[in-house]
């Protein structure tokens, strides 16, 4: 029998397999061995298969299908097009690496049972896959909510700790407010046809005002999931609370589903875009990028630092989205394609680099039990594998050539740079300022990463216990290694990656074929005359000079190397507490960007026997936006509470009056 599966069917089958693996975990819920040795590796295999299937589908025409389940009259519609494929590839490949890592990561006795954890984990993966494949509002929302719920349970794995429960609750709350906005956006998008398939939405013609409402709702809803400022508050709470592989998955993959949602709604479901939407997205993106990176620079918890850095990167992604909309609205389709490719590229990059860093923190956390940067240090000696692999991620996210973070930065800056001829004067003037902000954020990301890496892995051990830290196990190394390799590959052969992304960009922006990609040995957006970037050659030359320098020095002077105590300007009594702390490293940023932070300082007095200096940095947005909102909610709830009397006859009166009113209204 000849069984030929279409790519879509294969992907669906693999998603179902993920679900099956998750359920299998419940067979032996307490067995760590079964989940770790069997189920997680199987899940990784599924992930690889999905990535391969999605990559093969790129460039092929969309496939769609109707699944035989769902509500009566509302079956699940699914569709696999180029945009879905890009994000499915991201999901599959990154989750495969994370699953391999997870196989060796989870320990007994950490909150949730391993089998249940396995179920939640794979349900999370499968629901993210379904979000990417959904082709009607109903199935999209079902998948979206499953994703939110399963990730909520994953965040609260260690549910006995009150802070983690609080973080989970905050996450769930904002996720649901976001979901509500998305639902409303779909409600607007159907445009009076009451057909909730995406096909119907594509066909529906909205007038500009309603289209704008739909866009804003979608931006709000997906922005809440992505962690855009000012809806970002859950992110720095939830990421540190979750186990590291889950943080990696949430930051690396789940945030990208929100980007996918925005792209899907804006370019696919809404046929025409207005250029000012782009300005909104651009402004929010730049704000998030800047806000995220300066807060990342002052964090002292390593996972919180990475969470803020995720906000920064999502901000950059949305900057790209905004730029794409502006270009598309102004009719500059080639530039729009460039900006969209930069956006997609950055999504891919961030998925790899941030997952790698989160996994690195996971290994550090397991080896030392510490998340506080003030108690780490010098781990490069005891955990060389983790240290060197994390270094790749840190350099990549700092946007340094020839790694991958630089490629998307390069593409985005090129898009900004050659934006010159937009017919709107103010936009023309604002774009260079935007480019400057992006440049500033990238440079600040370098600052953040030097702090992150330097304080955790370099220097002296700040606690004596750190010397006994054990390096990560084989599967953890393997998972991180795959991601590090991904960072390298994405950095070194960008033109090959872009050839794939280009298909998605063309399909989404409806640009006819042939305008792009005349020559692909170099990365050259419009023409090599204008700008080009060839990381392979650059890397080769760098290696060559490095080796030549090393060889030359060795050849000329074969002197020995002696080890002695650090010199430190002849200061003899040096100890680990004298090196710069995480707080200290953030001091210039606190000083320069002081108005953005809510700082409380505790300074020692002149005669303190045990002087304490402490500074905490808070988020002003909490105080300005969320606390008033919470107070208002509370006050409203108190008002409503007057209704509650506890006497049955009062309640019956309420019902009676309601009944009377309704009858009067109806008749």
């Amino acid at each position, binding site marked *: 029998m000849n069984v030929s599966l279409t790519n879509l069917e294969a992907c669906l089958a693999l998603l179902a397999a993920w679900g099956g693996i998750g359920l299998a975990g419940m067979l032996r819920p307490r067995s760590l061995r079964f989940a770790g040795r069997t189920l997680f590796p199987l899940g990784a295999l599924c992930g690889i298969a999905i990535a391969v299937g999605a990559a093969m589908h790129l460039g092929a025409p969309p496939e769609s299908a109707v699944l035989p389940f769902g509500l009566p009259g509302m079956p699940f519609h699914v569709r696999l097009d180029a945009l879905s494929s890009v994000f499915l590839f991201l999901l599959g490949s990154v989750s495969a690496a994370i699953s391999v890592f997870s196989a060796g990561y989870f320990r007994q006795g950490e909150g949730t049972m391993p089998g249940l954890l396995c179920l939640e984990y794979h349900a999370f993966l499968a629901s993210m896959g379904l979000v990417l494949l959904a082709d009607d509002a109903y199935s999209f929302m079902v998948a979206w909510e499953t994703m939110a719920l399963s990730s909520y349970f994953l965040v609260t794995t260690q549910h006995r700790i009150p802070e983690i429960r609080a973080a989970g609750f905050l996450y769930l709350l904002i996720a649901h407010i976001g979901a509500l906005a998305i639902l409303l956006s779909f409600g607007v998008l159907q445009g009076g046809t009451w057909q909730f398939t995406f096909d119907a939405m594509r066909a529906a013609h909205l007038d500009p005002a309603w289209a704008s409402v739909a866009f804003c709702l979608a931006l709000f809803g997906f922005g809440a999931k992505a962690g855009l400022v000012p809806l970002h508050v859950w992110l720095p709470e939830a990421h540190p609370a979750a186990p590291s592989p889950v943080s990696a998955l949430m930051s690396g993959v789940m945030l990208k589903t929100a980007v996918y949602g925005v792209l899907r709604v804006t370019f696919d479901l809404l046929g025409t875009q207005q250029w000012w939407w782009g300005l909104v997205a651009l402004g929010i993106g730049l704000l998030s990028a800047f806000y995220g990176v300066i807060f990342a620079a002052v964090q002292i918890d390593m996972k919180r630092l990475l969470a803020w850095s995720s906000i920064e990167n999502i901000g950059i992604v949305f900057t790209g989205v905004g730029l794409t909309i502006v270009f598309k609205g102004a009719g500059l389709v080639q530039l729009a394609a460039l900006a969209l490719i930069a956006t997609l590229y950055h999504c891919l990059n961030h998925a790899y680099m941030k997952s790698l860093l989160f996994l690195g923190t996971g290994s550090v956390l397991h080896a030392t039990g510490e998340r506080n940067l003030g108690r780490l240090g*010098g781990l*490069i*000696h005891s955990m060389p594998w983790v240290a060197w692999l994390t270094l790749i991620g840190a*350099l990549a996210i700092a946007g340094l*050539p020839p790694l991958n973070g*630089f490629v998307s930065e*390069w593409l985005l*800056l*090129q898009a900004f*740079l050659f934006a*010159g001829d937009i017919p709107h004067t103010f936009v*023309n003037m604002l774009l*260079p300022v935007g*480019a*400057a902000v992006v*440049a*500033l954020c*990238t*440079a600040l990301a*370098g*600052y953040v990463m*030097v702090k992150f890496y*330097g304080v955790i892995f*370099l*220097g*002296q051990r700040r606690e004596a216990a750190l010397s006994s830290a054990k390096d990560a196990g084989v599967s953890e190394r393997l998972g991180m290694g795959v991601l590090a390799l991904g960072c390298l590959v994405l950095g070194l052969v960008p033109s090959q990656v872009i050839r794939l992304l280009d298909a998605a960009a063309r399909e989404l922006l409806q640009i006819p074929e042939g305008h792009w990609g005349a020559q692909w040995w*170099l990365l050259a957006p419009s023409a090599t005359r*204008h*700008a*080009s*970037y060839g990381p*392979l*050659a*650059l890397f080769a*030359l*760098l*290696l060559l*000079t*490095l080796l030549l320098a*090393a060889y030359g*020095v060795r050849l000329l*002077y074969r*002197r*020995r190397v*002696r*080890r*002695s*105590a*650090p*010199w*430190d300007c002849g*200061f003899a009594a*040096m100890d680990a507490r004298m*090196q*710069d702390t995480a707080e*200290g*490293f953030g001091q*210039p*940023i606190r*000083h320069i960007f002081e108005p953005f932070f809510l700082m409380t300082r505790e300074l020692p007095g002149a005669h303190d026997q045990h002087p304490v200096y402490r500074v905490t940095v808070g988020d002003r947005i909490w105080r300005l936006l969320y606390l008033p909102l919470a107070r208002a909610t509370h006050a409203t709830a108190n008002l409503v509470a007057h209704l509650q009397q506890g006497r049955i006859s009062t309640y019956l009166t309420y019902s009676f009056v309601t009944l009377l009113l309704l009858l009067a209204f109806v008749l």
Partner: protein
Amino acid sequence: MTPLSAATQLLEVVSATLAAPIFLGWVNQCRAWLQNRTAPSVLQPYYGLRKLLHKDAVLAENASPLFRAAPYVVFGTMVVAAAIIPSMGTGLPMSAAADGIALVGLLATARVFLSLAAMDVGTAFGSLGARREMMVGFLAEPALLMILFVAALISGTTSLPLIAEGLSSHALGLYPSLAFTAVAFVLVLLAENARIPIDNPSTHLELTMIHEAMLLEYSARHLALMEWAAALKLFNYACIGFALFVPWGAGNEAAGPLGLLLAVPLLALKLIVAGAVLALIETLSAKLRVFRAPEFLATAFLLAVLGLLVHLLLGA
């Protein structure tokens, strides 16, 4: 790749690497003259390098492999940067692989490795220097990028040799936007090369220094490479300045080998003048407090952005 361009490329890399210390020596000599001191020889940096290369290297007990690798990486990055900056000729094959944005990225790579290495031993001064270096860097890097952007917008490309060619081809064009960027560039150059208003290359007063603080734990060949890299960085910055603001005279394909030969003395002349001016600026200004450094660099950054805006307004 024609033989000529390959020759230009090779000549540039080798001569930049070899001649960088002499430029530093020249700046130091000018400074000494201006300060009424007996000037050291122009070749003093070479003597220093030779001395360092002859010594036994002393490493701190807890120095990691990163610490030993960093000098090579920093040095290598600077050499690669020299390969893509047009100093003598504009026909550089390597410049297709790395444009102005990549150049900024390369310089950032060097900075990050230098700072990481400074944090590696875990001394108070090293990490202090690393923190300050990154503080200077996060403002100087976008400023440099914006400066390159202005030139890129004028000439319609981000490739440095093409920028230099484009700017030199209309010799009488006045670009007001370049006036802004020129000021910004001088500020960035001073800050990035640890020159006086921000840092003092000749000080060893611990609390005021940035660059030297990061090198405290290095010795012998590692220190030599770091110092060589610093000299090369100064040379590179000078050449970026020439490419953007005085691009005339760099040999191109059309000028042939003769143009390349002519470009060598011209570059020397430019370097002599630039070195003297740099020494003058340093002598005339006083070192800023570290807290003032962000203001100084923010000024550079804003001026560069302003240049971009002026370009958009005036079209030049």
